[in-house]
């Protein structure tokens, strides 16, 4: 048994949400990148979460105690085509004067960013509560 309940699940969640925010930041930073290292416009990156089973040890009756954490299964690439705009003065314009922009939608990214930061806050609140509980357990018999 862990002295701070739920701390393993929360640790994995904080890590996953932080990675998600990193990826969103990368998408926003490259929202106008028309030429990446491969010569193609930037493709939006996505994060896929999956639940993972954590084994916390056994209780006094020998039953395995488990909790679920969260794992980043993969960082994927959104292969959908970005918008095509007419801008003949652009260095990446084709012979018809069209430029392929990245498939990053700033509105979507901002919504995702807020959702990630709210999840992060909720998990931080779990850490605070668990710490409080651990301190109370340690104070048993002292007062």
């Amino acid at each position: 048994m862990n002295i701070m309940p739920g701390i393993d699940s929360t640790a994995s969640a904080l890590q996953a949400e932080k990675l998600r925010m990193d990826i969103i930041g990368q998408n926003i930073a490259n929202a106008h990148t028309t030429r990446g290292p491969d010569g193609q416009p930037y493709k939006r990156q996505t994060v896929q979460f999956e639940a993972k089973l954590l084994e916390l040890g056994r209780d006094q009756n020998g039953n395995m105690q488990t909790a679920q954490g969260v794992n980043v299964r993969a960082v994927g690439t959104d292969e959908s085509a970005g918008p095509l705009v007419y801008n003949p003065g652009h260095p990446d314009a084709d012979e018809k004067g069209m430029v392929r922009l990245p498939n990053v939608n700033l509105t979507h990214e901002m919504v995702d960013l807020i959702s990630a930061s709210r999840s992060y806050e909720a998990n931080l609140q779990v850490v605070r509560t668990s710490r409080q509980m651990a301190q109370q357990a340690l104070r048993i018999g002292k007062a």
Partner: protein
Amino acid sequence: MIDDLMQRENYVLAKKLLDVSHAKQNAIASNLANVETPGYKRIDIQSDFEANLRKAASSNDVSEISNLQFRTVTDLSTPSVRADGNNVQIDQEMLRMQKNAIQYEFLANYTSTSLSRLKTAISGRV
């Protein structure tokens, strides 16, 4: 003799409830960690545990309370409002967590107070 004191119903009951509270915080942490995992179903302490504990407590048999088992189960009854099947509602989980934390604090304080009363009785000093 001191063993008998520690085996009194109130200590055994408080211990069991602290254990449940701890397990519940574990479950809530799992749920909040997976608030955005596609297909995740929330977990909770089995819903009939409280009724079982009440029954055991009224039986006046301490071993029945300490032998009472509780399990963490997947909650499939809560409807999901999301297309991916995840049924965690962040506000509900936060409320459960606050409620559970207060319960834990009460139990920890209760145990401490009982122990200090015992100490006072032994030492004769207030």
